[in-house]
């Protein structure tokens, strides 16, 4: 009476698919958040300087040299018409002929925000005798990262709830052991624990299978790219968070299944325990 076993190919397939989908949802959310953070880091480190001094060519070159000498500034170079055309095309503006562009008085720079702030850069330019504006790219990393993670988490929760529902229904459909336990006077907790344990074991194993399939599938896709990614590079690119998500996926599936199985067993047990 303390033993109960879930079984069936249909349950196994549903469990594996939902566990894999939950894992992919969590990974997708994490990937979106990681990209948002990377983009924000790039935006925070990039800087455009517009030179206002009248003697444009000399002032631009002087400003660039002053910037390169400023601690925390990793790179500084005048934006040539060719570079401007390249940036405009990358922004989706279509083909641009550099010859069509007017002379620019802009410098692109990258900096470490921790070492070089706007005040320090402005001071360095003023010391070089250059009057200039600093134009920082708008950096709003938090919303994109937040919504990426929130979306992934929401998807994972919904798929976990679906997994719990599958096991709830399976437990109700296979509620004979629970009903028999009620008939014989078994402790409700013991019966629910038997169902929950079996659901957890079943979903844990299928969750491991799903995680292996997802990882193998991702590796297969990356290795089949026109420029294949080596396994060493793949391993190096996996972030600790992504690794944790993959490792925790079977446990998450087990917890969801246990919860669903217990609630389904409780319904079957209670229906037999109290008839009127």
């Amino acid at each position, binding site marked *: *009476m*303390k033993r109960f*076993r879930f079984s069936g190919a249909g349950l196994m397939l549903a469990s594996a698919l939902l566990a894999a989908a939950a894992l992919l949802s969590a990974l997708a959310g994490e990937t979106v958040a990681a990209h948002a953070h990377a983009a924000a880091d790039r935006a925070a480190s990039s800087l455009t300087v517009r030179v206002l001094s009248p003697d444009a060519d000399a002032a631009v070159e002087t400003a660039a040299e002053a910037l390169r000498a400023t601690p925390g500034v990793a790179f500084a170079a005048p934006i040539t018409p060719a570079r401007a055309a390249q940036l405009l095309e990358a922004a989706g503006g279509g083909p641009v002929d550099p010859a069509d562009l007017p002379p620019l008085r802009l410098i692109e720079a990258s900096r470490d925000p921790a070492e070089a702030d706007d005040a320090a850069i402005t001071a360095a330019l003023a010391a070089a005798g250059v009057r200039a504006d600093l134009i920082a790219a708008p950096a709003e990393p938090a919303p994109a990262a937040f919504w990426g993670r929130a979306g992934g988490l929401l998807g994972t929760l919904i798929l976990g709830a679906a997994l719990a529902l599958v096991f709830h229904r399976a437990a109700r459909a296979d509620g*004979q*052991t629970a*009903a*028999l*336990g*009620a*008939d*014989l*006077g*078994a*402790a*409700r907790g*013991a019966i629910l624990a038997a169902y929950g344990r079996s659901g957890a074991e079943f979903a844990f194993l299928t969750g491991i299978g799903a995680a292996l399939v997802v990882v193998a599938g991702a590796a297969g896709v990356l290795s089949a790219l026109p420029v294949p990614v080596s396994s060493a590079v793949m391993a190096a690119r996996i972030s600790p968070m992504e690794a944790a998500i993959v490792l925790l996926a079977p446990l998450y599936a087990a917890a969801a299944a246990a919860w669903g199985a217990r609630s389904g067993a409780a319904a079957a047990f209670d229906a*037999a*325990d*109290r*008839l*009127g």
Partner: protein
Amino acid sequence: MTPPTAADDEDQPVVIAPAAPEPGRPPAIDLAGVTAGWRGRAPALVDVSLTLAAGATAVVHGGPGAGKTALLHVLRAAMIPTAGRAAVLGSDIASLAPAVRRALRRRIGYIAATPLLAAAENTFMAAAAPLRLTERTLSPRQAADVTEILGYLGLGALAAAPVEDLSGSQRRLTAIARAFVAQPDVLLADEPLAGLGPDAMSRVLRLLAEIARQQAAVVIATQTPDMYAALPARKVRLDRGRLAP
């Protein structure tokens, strides 16, 4: 419990002596004005009063819908009266906490009209189910008792067979064995002889008499009370949920 010896079975027809009542012992079953039924439906029992001493047997009979099965559900504390008082083994079942009701149920053997057996188990494990509620493994004595009662009921060779492979009558006999192995203080049986052959019937009757002799109160619900004529039992007739004179 120990089944009757094989020599007892040679006596035909089956005539069983009544159990000797223990003086001063409170009744095992004491219903007073009980009204009860399934949720959301009209009461299946109305104002039923019934007292049964330990060691006594009652054959409750009546047609379909008379309330026989509902009476058994009340006696096994699965159906709580909406009016009146139902005391089983000294406990008013309406006042018991759910966990205590379940503990009380472990002292009550129940043979349902359609026995519920765990399909994944074999006959031996199904029959031993009440003993496995609290014990991780059966003691050698318990295992021997289960084997003995299965053998007495003609299921010895099927002990290792999956329950799902058993016939209807074999499933019923397994449920009967299950009800007896825990040596209950109250035994409730809903048409226990239905579908059984003559030999199995006489053996079940002897088991019913034996458990009564061991001071269990026995209540049998049936539409055919004559099948239990060999038992020293009190006849109680139900008609549309009420006791009939």
